[in-house]
């Protein structure tokens, strides 16, 4: 009874491979923005959040306000709060309080999606197997990317840098295709984001605040216009 550590490892491997490529791109990006190799690695090892890290790099590099950094992380990573709420309903009795403190640290979009899609409740052995290789992949990929950023020709690093956006596209597109309200939310967010980029008066707003403002407006408008059904899953199916 219960899923084994081994099954967790097997389920986590595809995520690990995906993370290797994406965090490789992050490593290149961080070093290209002026961070040291050790700094890039530490950011990945202590945060384990693609979007949050990507947004933080220009804020830190430009000496931005702590409030901007903290608020941008809050908004960008708010989705994890919901995933943690949902995951807490899916844990079996083997998961102790101290396990929760550890598992929460690596509760990423992909880890959550796999853990919550299991038919039975999940135990701590399975969860530790599941989070092990994605965490190592995320850290190792960042290290390799940070080192390679200095070695590889620009022509290659430039192309690899787009991988992190590939990850966002992989998460958003299938849901926007299946659900019109989510597609509308995506459209609003994209238009607002472009306004902040191309309208001269708005383009001076720091990047962290742009993310907060645009995302809160887009999600807020759609939450009023097209609220989700209470009875259904409170978490997006594949986020």
């Amino acid at each position: 009874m219960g899923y084994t550590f081994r099954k967790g490892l097997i389920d986590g491997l595809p995520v690990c491979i995906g993370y290797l490529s994406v965090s490789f791109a992050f490593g290149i990006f961080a070093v290209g923005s002026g961070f040291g190799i050790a700094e890039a690695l530490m950011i990945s090892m202590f945060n384990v959040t693609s979007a949050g890290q990507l947004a933080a790099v220009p804020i830190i590099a430009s000496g931005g306000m702590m409030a901007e950094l903290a608020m941008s992380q809050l908004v960008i990573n708010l989705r994890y709060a919901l995933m943690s709420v949902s995951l807490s309903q899916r844990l079996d009795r083997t998961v102790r309080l101290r396990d929760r403190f550890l598992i929460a640290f690596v509760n990423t979009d992909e880890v959550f999606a796999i853990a919550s899609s299991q038919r039975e409740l999940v135990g701590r052995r399975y969860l530790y197997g599941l989070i092990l290789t994605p965490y190592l992949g995320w850290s190792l990929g960042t290290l390799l990317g940070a080192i390679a950023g200095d070695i590889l020709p620009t022509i290659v690093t430039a192309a690899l840098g787009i991988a992190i956006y590939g990850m966002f596209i992989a998460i958003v597109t299938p849901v926007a295709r299946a659900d019109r309200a989510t597609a509308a939310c995506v459209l609003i967010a994209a238009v607002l984001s472009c306004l902040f980029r191309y309208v001269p008066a708005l383009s001076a707003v720091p990047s962290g605040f742009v993310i907060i403002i645009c995302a809160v407006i887009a999600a807020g408008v759609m939450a009023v216009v097209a609220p989700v059904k209470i009875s259904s899953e409170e978490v997006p199916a594949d986020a």
Partner: protein
Amino acid sequence: MPDFFLYLAVMAGVTYLIRMLPLVLIKKKITNRFVLSFLHYIPYAVLTVMTVPACFYATGRIEPAVVGFIAALIPAWFNKGLPIVAACACGGALLTELFFVYVLPTI
């Protein structure tokens, strides 16, 4: 670089608290419909704002980035999963970049 560690502590602290507090503290389910709806939409809104239009400036020139963006969109549309989508994005961008650097000048 003491500033870096302060930044690191702030971002890691905020991120960890967001993940940890609900998992450790919340026992009941959230029932407020607006909050649930807002939380449902926020991931897609955030990721979109971060991708458009920043993605188009991720590579040196705009053409490889646009090709990479479209190359990622197609497998993503058919739900192909993260490794394939990321590979398509990079492959599309790299081939376009190579075209601009090595092929175009010879034509």
